[in-house]
């Protein structure tokens, strides 16, 4: 694997830093592990592990009220947990970037991931989110920069969707 192939979480972290992100809320996902490690190691970023993804929607609203930029990391299953709380974001026009690792769409072993995974994009569109889907590692950085501009430039909701093909297969047997 080339550096470019493996390094997309680091490129994502770099774009967060350039955009001045100070709070990162997340429910852990294996696909986000490297990015979470980078954020946790950064004294300028407050990493906030959440019990459910909707907490992060509220956290990001509070951060913006106080003048800080936040992002929210989750797996596709977490999108469903956010829906009503996104009313806060939409009603008040809070900026919100959701970074979503996909399950249930490519070489998925676990059928329980498919119902939510299959409706992530339409549900987010109904919530007025702009979708930025990355399928290849070298697309991630450019899409992230555009998504951040949409979020903090226009005070909108954007979702960076990281395809399951990009992240790779979860290994079920060892």
């Amino acid at each position: 694997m080339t550096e470019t192939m493996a390094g997309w979480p680091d490129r994502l972290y770099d774009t967060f830093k350039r955009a001045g992100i100070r709070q990162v809320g997340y429910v852990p996902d294996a696909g986000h592990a490297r990015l979470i490690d980078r954020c946790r190691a950064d004294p300028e970023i407050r990493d906030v592990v959440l019990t459910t993804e909707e907490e992060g929607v509220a956290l990001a609203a509070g951060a913006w009220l106080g003048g800080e930029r936040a992002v929210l990391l989750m797996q596709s299953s977490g999108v469903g947990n956010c829906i009503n709380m996104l009313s806060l974001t939409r009603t008040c026009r809070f900026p919100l970037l959701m970074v979503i690792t996909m399950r249930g769409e490519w070489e998925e072993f676990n059928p329980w991931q498919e119902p939510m995974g299959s409706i992530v994009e339409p549900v987010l569109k109904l919530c007025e989110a702009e979708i930025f889907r990355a399928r290849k590692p070298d697309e991630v950085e450019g899409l992230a920069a555009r998504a951040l501009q949409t979020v903090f430039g226009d005070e909108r909701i954007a979702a960076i969707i990281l395809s399951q093909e990009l992240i790779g297969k979860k290994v079920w047997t060892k």
Partner: protein
Amino acid sequence: MSLERRAAMATLIEGRGEDLLVVPGLGSTAWDLAAAGDNDRNFYLWGAMGGAAMIGLGLALAQPKRRVAVITGDGEMLMGLGALATIGIQRPDNLAVIVFDNGVYGETGMQPSATQSGADLLKVAGACGIATCLDVRDQAGLADLAGRLKSLRGTLFARVSIEANEPPRVLPERDGVALKQRFRAALGLKP
């Protein structure tokens, strides 16, 4: 013994100072806060049930030199109970989460909440790692809480036992964008 909610709110925010930021939960606590006097540093919720404490956390982390008080109801806190675990990890010095607990859902017809049947928010908050958890049941307890709110030194949780009454509604601004912009402007941020 229980306290009257409007008087309790008024006591808590009396002489609040410019550095106290208040996030009430949706419904009764928002009306209580509006009744106590409007302020640009109030961020009234008309929805987002279960989110008040987390909005308070994001705000407290972003504004470490100001004090943040989340003042919400038992039903709203119960919907976002996990937030206490999340706050228990972060524990910003400048955050107070205060729950007006009357054991009922007042806005919807006084249906009983879980706190009436044994769910103990003080024990939950304590078990989540919040060191200071106050059980406020009388005027002396309320005065103590109001005093601590003046100079927060560590994350604080308080359960305030209030009467299950429903005073006349006092409705604050409900335009979310306007509320956000005036709040940020009051903090010297670009609206």
